[in-house]
């Protein structure tokens, strides 16, 4: 994406689920340093990594049931994954600015580990567009970075299978962030000096994939495998070719620049090796000590795989709304605050360096006590300008139990509204304001290939994937947000004998929007007693799949629906209000509904709230805990009341005001349902999750 006339924005989000199930630390570490190399190797290469994001799905760390053979406890997986992300991000000097953790016991077979990295790259290197990949015959193939060992052999193929007790831990690589940091520093300088013609990373499939892909650009390549440096002797040629040993890039270098590149590499203590050259022969020609090792027609390699035909059949589940009689709302709110999907992730957030580079504007936790959770991260791009980006994620797998379409649409809306909450403005194709938006879609689904014995509900699973895609199409085209990248992980099952643990179909939307002036960013926490609190958007009787129902172990039927036209109108009004500096706080309403959002907004320090929700006829539980989309809690200065009501009209409802005491009071119509100390809610929220 174009940032301005000087720079482009690059990003990619990947999953590293299977490796993290077997070796949580190594799997997650390699996940994050692996995805770093995607922006590093985009176009010519040399992008400067800007931030990491990590979204994780685990079984409950408090899981007490039996473990299958070869299966690790969810707590052990979580601790290892978090440590891997900590080392991968912190040691690389890349701030981990955004993420979330979703808990569901169906993730205890395979956890989901989504790792994303963004980078900024100059628009041009020595006058050449930086994003282009050009290769001519006789250009040299240069491998740079780590050496090749037996680690990670078959990593890519094993990841595409279900896991069982025989899955090889040796398929997981262990990354070295410092080796890669040197490589990254080197690439920035080499690209700036015009020494790289283009680059790509060695990830899944190693050289076979990186050279195999690049060879298609000019029509052939010769690789001399014996020229590649090894960690230790004894590797077979095929092992050298497909090993996924980490920290390696493949560069395309014009023959006359090889000498200068090698000299610069010595300064950075980066090992580089000339392992072959490109051709236009139409063949991928792999040699080992002058003997042929493989000779494959490129056209066959890239286009000969037969297309798979799969069957899908959608049937709506038969569900109904439960009756929950006379709930104690104080107690429910307290339980929700300590619920794993709602509670503070501080113990994880703080082991990630989220501030290195000194550009963080909205951090995951803010306020005078550093406790108020924020909706999207905001980061400036430069030290001498206020241009920045807002970064969000949307992921709500539990809605898929009712309708995968609404789950996908709702996740998309969640990502959009988080960016709106922090002060982003929707894409406007008619107005060339230079604001870009981008979304990465990452699907993680169970095996969806129908088999009457092994996978009897395969057609239904595939239908869920189809519905998730339909929602993605509808939402992305409606909001004009380009899908710049994405990936799928299709076999998220753990199987032993007749027992199979499959993940619920899950989609993560990772979103970025440019902000022209990060000083206009809005945070979620209330600022001052006396400010007026509004609900923006409308609450519906949509408790289906809610965290409220989860407390009673029921799913319900009324899943939140995205009303796209309403959402767009509301988001434009939010931007208009922020343009006039009217919003003192804005917090998007998601897991746990309105009551949880109100409590979280009061975690900024020394504020509480006194609320009266007008009766809209949907019932007290739905008023408090429905998770209807496209809603915000906002607070404004008392003197802004007229202006705010004029902008929002019937899209806002006055709820009450910020008070100075340690207290949250919520009445629905005239009935007082919640009256609690904020400090008690904060303690329950803060202390629920330890590592």
């Amino acid at each position, binding site marked *: 994406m174009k940032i301005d006339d000087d720079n482009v924005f690059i990003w990619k989000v990947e999953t590293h689920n299977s490796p993290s199930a077997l070796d949580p630390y190594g799997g997650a570490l390699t996940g994050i340093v692996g995805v770093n190399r995607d922006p590093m190797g985009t176009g010519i290469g040399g992008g400067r990594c800007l931030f990491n994001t990590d979204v994780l799905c685990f079984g409950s760390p408090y899981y007490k049931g039996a473990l299958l053979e070869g299966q690790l406890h969810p707590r052990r997986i979580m601790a290892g994954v978090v440590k891997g992300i900590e080392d991968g991000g*912190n040691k690389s000097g890349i701030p981990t600015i955004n993420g979330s953790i979703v808990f569901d016991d169906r993730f205890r077979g395979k956890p989901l580990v989504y790792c994303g990295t963004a980078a900024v790259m100059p628009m041009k290197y020595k006058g050449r567009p930086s994003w282009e990949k050009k290769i001519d015959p006789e250009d040299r193939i240069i491998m740079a970075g780590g050496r090749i060992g037996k680690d990670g052999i078959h990593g890519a193929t094993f990841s595409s299978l279900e896991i069982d007790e025989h899955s090889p831990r040796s398929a997981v690589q262990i990354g070295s*962030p410092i080796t890669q940091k040197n490589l990254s520093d080197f690439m920035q300088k080499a690209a700036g000096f015009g020494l790289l013609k283009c680059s790509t990373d060695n990830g899944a499939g190693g050289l076979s994939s990186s050279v195999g892909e690049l060879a298609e650009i000019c029509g052939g390549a010769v690789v001399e495998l014996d020229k590649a440096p090894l960690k230790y002797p004894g590797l077979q040629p095929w092992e050298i070719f497909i090993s996924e040993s980490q920290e390696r890039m493949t560069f395309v270098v014009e023959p006359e620049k090889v000498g200068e590149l090698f000299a610069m590499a010595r*300064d950075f203590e980066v090992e580089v090796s000339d392992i072959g050259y490109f051709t236009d022969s139409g063949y991928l020609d792999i040699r080992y000590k002058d003997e042929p090792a493989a000779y494959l027609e490129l056209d066959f390699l890239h286009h000969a795989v037969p297309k798979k035909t799969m069957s899908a059949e959608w049937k709506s589940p038969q569900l109904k709304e439960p009756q929950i009689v006379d709930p104690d709302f104080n107690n429910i709110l307290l339980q929700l605050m300590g619920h794993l999907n709602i509670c503070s992730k501080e113990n994880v957030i703080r082991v990630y360096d989220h501030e290195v580079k*000194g550009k963080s504007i909205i951090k995951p936790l803010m306020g005078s006590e550093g406790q108020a959770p924020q909706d999207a991260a905001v980061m400036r791009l430069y030290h001498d300008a206020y241009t920045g980006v807002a970064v969000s994620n949307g992921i709500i797998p539990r809605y898929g139990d009712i309708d995968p379409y609404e789950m996908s649409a709702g996740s998309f809306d969640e990502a959009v509204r988080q960016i709106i909450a922090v002060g982003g403005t929707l894409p406007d194709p008619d107005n060339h304001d230079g604001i870009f938006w981008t979304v990465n879609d990452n699907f993680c689904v169970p095996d969806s290939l129908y088999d009457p014995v092994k996978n009897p509900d395969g057609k239904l699973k595939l239908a869920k994937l189809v519905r998730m895609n339909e929602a993605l199409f509808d939402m992305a085209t409606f909001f004009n947000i380009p899908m710049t990248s994405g990936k799928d992980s299709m076999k998220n099952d753990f199987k032993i004998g007749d027992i199979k643990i499959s993940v619920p179909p899950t989609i993560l939307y990772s979103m970025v929007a440019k902000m022209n002036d990060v000083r206009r960013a809005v945070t979620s926490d209330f600022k001052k007693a006396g400010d007026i609190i509004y609900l923006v958007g409308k609450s519906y009787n949509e408790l289906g799949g809610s965290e409220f129902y989860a407390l009673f172990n029921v799913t319900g039927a009324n899943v939140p629906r995205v009303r796209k036209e309403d959402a767009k109108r509301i988001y434009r009004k939010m931007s208009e209000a922020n343009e006039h500096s009217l919003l*003192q706080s804005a917090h998007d309403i998601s897991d746990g509904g309105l009551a949880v959002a109100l409590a979280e907004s009061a975690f900024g320090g020394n504020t509480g709230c006194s609320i009266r929700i007008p009766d809209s006829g949907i019932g007290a539980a739905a008023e408090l805990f429905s998770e209807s989309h496209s809603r915000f809690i906002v607070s404004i200065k008392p003197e802004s009341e007229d202006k705010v009501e004029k902008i929002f009209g019937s899209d806002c409802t006055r709820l009450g005001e910020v008070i100075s005491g340690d207290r949250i009071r919520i009445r629905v119509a005239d009935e007082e349902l919640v009256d609690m100390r904020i400090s008690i809610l904060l303690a329950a929220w803060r202390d629920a999750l330890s590592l």
Partner: protein
Amino acid sequence: MKRENMIRSLVVTGFGINCEEEMAAAYRKAGADAVILHLNDLFEERDSIHHYDILNFPGGFSFGDDIGSAKVLANKFKFRKMRSGNCFIDDIKEFLSAGKYIMGVCNGFQALVKMGLLPNIAGNFEQEVTLTHNDSGKFEDRWVRCLITAENPSPFLSDPEIRHIELPVRHGEGKLVIRDKDIERAILDNNLNVMTYADPRNRPASTYPDNPNGSQLNCAGLCDPAGRVFGLMPHPEAYLSLYNHPDWPKKKRELPDISEEGEGLSLFRNIVEKVKAEKK
């Protein structure tokens, strides 16, 4: 100002150092000319620290900190032969005797301590204290409050207006441990414990999380007796802008005309002004 008349600040990088960009930005905002240089350029003597007025060791994870924070980096400085055959530490000693200044933040501070530059009470460049694992046993990114010690000898902290400062810490090994009582006494007697962790009411803090690592003397930063070398665990270069602070929206609400500069920038302004005054 013409570039050749500007104060020149050198920021070293390489081998896992990762805060060089914001460190250089800090000096530029403070009115100096900042240059980022890979350490191998210094070791190969393509440039020399003697061309600069201030030498900076930024934060990061040099060599991965795998055998203790900054240990490998400190040894490299002490024992690595440069092209001319001199060790880098000899260059540093010469730099200091020329009356110049050195700053180390986080991993840079750890390196200064482990190569004997801080506190260097005996003046023999032998290690007297160490920085080791936080009492919490983990890396943490959180904002802390620090008190500036009165009458301390560091020109980085000379601004009489600023007696305390909020900054982020981002480390796993920031706990100061002092070798013996004599060294501790000398640190206190000479006001070398220049920055200490404090609670929200600006009282010295020895308990977590106000003191994030369990540091002896609640120490957040040290300087040498001559005031030439300054090191600290918190990151002043991460608070160059008001908008870096975790409570900036409320600060702005309370004081609409508040400066858009972050308090961390004051340290860099202080040293740049000091060097300017000395050059006049």
